[in-house]
């Protein structure tokens, strides 16, 4: 049996068609050549558009839930002890079987239905393992709900192995992300067992992130890289976020307080180091993102920059929020408008014109505007504006 559930050629066909379509849009291929490439590398798998995938995902979940309820109804008469574990095992096995058969039969490839089946299967496996470990460990440790509980390894370790195997076989990006999070939890749990572990935890996690980043770059060089492309992209984002979060002052300070069981957080040792990391890492990400150029680094950098500002405002409120909002709005508006003009058509390898890498297929923007624009509401019957300054339409204060 092959290690990969899907035919690796599908990933290659997909990449080829995407690249060909892009080159065709940029006028580098003639229409005939584009047609010839499409005919030479046809898409042999089934994957509909985003909305159909959402639909398939939803209705597969409904179907699986119905089947699980049906099974539970039968089992409740037969098995009394360890009912949940038997149910979990049967459901996991059933989902897995349906998943494998539908990939073989219908050639679905990350089409929503197979994602749903895989998540259901892994969810039931998690229930099963947690149930087994819960029964095995001493009663006194069962309710010690802390990341430092040494018995946590018993559940996390096998789960990590299962998720890793699932990632290798199915190349699903959410499962890959879950695998990475399990790894982080394992590391945190192990670090909390040793003396000074808690104090060194931020640096340990940063080291793990660096190691994981190196691993992701190495995996990029493998010949079967295309099969895991979406996983590696998401992992790169998560690795960058981990590295930032491990050095973020808010995270370190509050996590430290939480792990020590303190109700209020106090100043942490080496605070200046974490100030510098909180301020510096987003800048480094953004600059790297623009110079490399890499959208992953840039967007992660912008996201972490917002987090850094929030961290600063959490401990030191420099300006009242509304003035800060006005100033930030003016600055953002001015910078974006200037950059839009300055980068047209292009400077320093950057442009403000739309990229034809991905054709826009969905008009999201008008829905976002409808969601965020605040229109004065008609007052409820019986409610009069009266004299108060704050009556009626003060709805803008939601920002």
């Amino acid at each position: 049996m092959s290690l990969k559930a899907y035919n690796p050629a599908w990933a290659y066909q997909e990449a080829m068609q995407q690249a060909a379509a892009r080159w065709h849009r940029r006028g580098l291929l003639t229409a005939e050549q584009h047609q010839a490439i499409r005919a030479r590398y046809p898409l042999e798998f089934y994957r509909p558009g985003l909305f159909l995938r959402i639909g398939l995902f939803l209705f597969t979940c409904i179907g699986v839930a119905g089947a699980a309820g049906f099974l539970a109804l039968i089992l409740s008469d037969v098995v009394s002890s360890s009912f949940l574990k038997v149910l979990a095992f049967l459901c996991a096995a059933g989902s897995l079987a349906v998943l494998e058969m539908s990939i073989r039969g219908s050639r679905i490839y990350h089409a929503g239905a197979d994602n749903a089946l895989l998540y259901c299967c892994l969810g039931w496996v998690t229930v099963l393992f947690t149930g087994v470990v819960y029964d095995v460990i001493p009663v006194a440790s069962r309710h010690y709900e802390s990341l430092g509980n040494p018995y946590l390894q018993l559940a996390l370790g096998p789960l990590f192995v299962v998720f890793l195997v699932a990632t290798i076989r199915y190349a699903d990006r959410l499962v890959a992300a879950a695998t990475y999070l399990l790894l982080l939890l394992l590391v945190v749990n192990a670090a909390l067992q040793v003396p000074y572990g808690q104090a060194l935890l931020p640096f340990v996690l940063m080291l793990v992130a660096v190691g994981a980043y190196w691993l992701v770059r190495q995996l990029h060089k493998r010949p079967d890289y295309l099969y895991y492309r979406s996983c590696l992209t998401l992992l790169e984002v998560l690795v960058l976020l981990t590295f930032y979060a491990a050095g973020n002052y808010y995270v370190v300070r509050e996590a430290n307080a939480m792990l020590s069981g303190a109700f209020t957080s106090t100043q942490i040792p080496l605070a200046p180091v974490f100030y510098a990391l909180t301020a510096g890492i987003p800048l480094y990400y953004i600059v790297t993102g623009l110079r490399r150029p890499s959208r992953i680094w840039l967007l992660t950098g912008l996201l972490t920059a917002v987090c850094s500002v929030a961290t600063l405002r959490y401990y030191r409120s420099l300006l009242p929020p509304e003035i800060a909002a006005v100033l930030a709005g003016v600055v953002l508006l001015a910078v974006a408008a200037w950059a839009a003009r300055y980068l047209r058509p292009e400077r320093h390898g950057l442009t403000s014109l739309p990229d034809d890498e991905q054709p826009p297929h969905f008009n999201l923007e008008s829905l976002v505007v409808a969601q965020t624009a605040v229109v004065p509401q008609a007052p409820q019957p019986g409610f009069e504006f009266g004299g108060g300054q704050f009556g009626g339409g003060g709805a803008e204060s939601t920002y």
Partner: protein
Amino acid sequence: MIPEQLLTDLQNAELLPAAQAAAIREDERTRPFSLHYELRAGLYLGITLLTGGLGVLLYQHLSEIGHGVIIGSMVLLMAASFGYAARHRQPFTWGQTRPVSFVPDYILLLGCLLFLALETYLQVQYNFFGSRYGLVTILPAALFLALAYSFDHRGVLAMSLTALASWVGVSIAPLSAFTENSFLSSRLGGAAVLLGLLLAGVGFYSDFADRKRHFAFTYISLGANLALLAATVSLFDFYLSSFLPNAVLVLLILALSAGLVWYARLRHSYLFLLMGAVYGYITVTYLFFHLLDFNDGEAAIMLGLFYFMGSAVAVILFFVNAKKFLRLA
């Protein structure tokens, strides 16, 4: 790295001459990195922060700054925004305009949001419109509608529809079902359904008559969602007497869902297919459990579970064959 492997394979398959492959390599290397969507998001975020912050400032510092100063500066800013947008306006067409830059679009949005803040302020502070509350909401609705058509702006159109909905007394924002629990009392349900149907109708008209065809998505997605959501909510509302008999509601939802699926088929739009399928499924499920007799106990539960399994499989098969189904049109 990927293009290199792909290009080598294409050359080996003799689908690509070497000179052209070199040109593609060169283009991949020198192609500028687009910041288009990042900048647009930045502009939008800046506008919302600015108008939101200004709105709060107005209420907090009413007594400290003179009213005239506030109103004057906001009117100036608004006039400047509208003026800037008007200077960059493209000539009107019933089709889609192709503006040079996207910045004027956002400046227009800024002007509209400032108008809202200003209008709210005038009403609260000076009771400018008196007790004609309807006027407070219908005025921006009308103004934004005119602006949306003359400036060809879908965001302003969405704002106009939001104002129109709030004139009727309902919230149209896509997520309002989750944020406002009591957003549809049955008294407003009828109005919401009517408005939703009207908007969806305008959307269909603008598509088929080719009058701003690209506005159809905004009209239909907001309108159909409002009508279906309002109808579904009052279908499940056990406490308040409904504005329409449930049988009529069921028929209405099914008809509208079928209409969406038909439109999706015509325009190859998977979003509307999904919307039609989900609302239709909810209603059919409601019907099934309504007709199911729970006095039978376990047999009824069994039947219910079978229904979920069977219907899920049926819908999945429908979706999997949707491509065939959509292309048939």
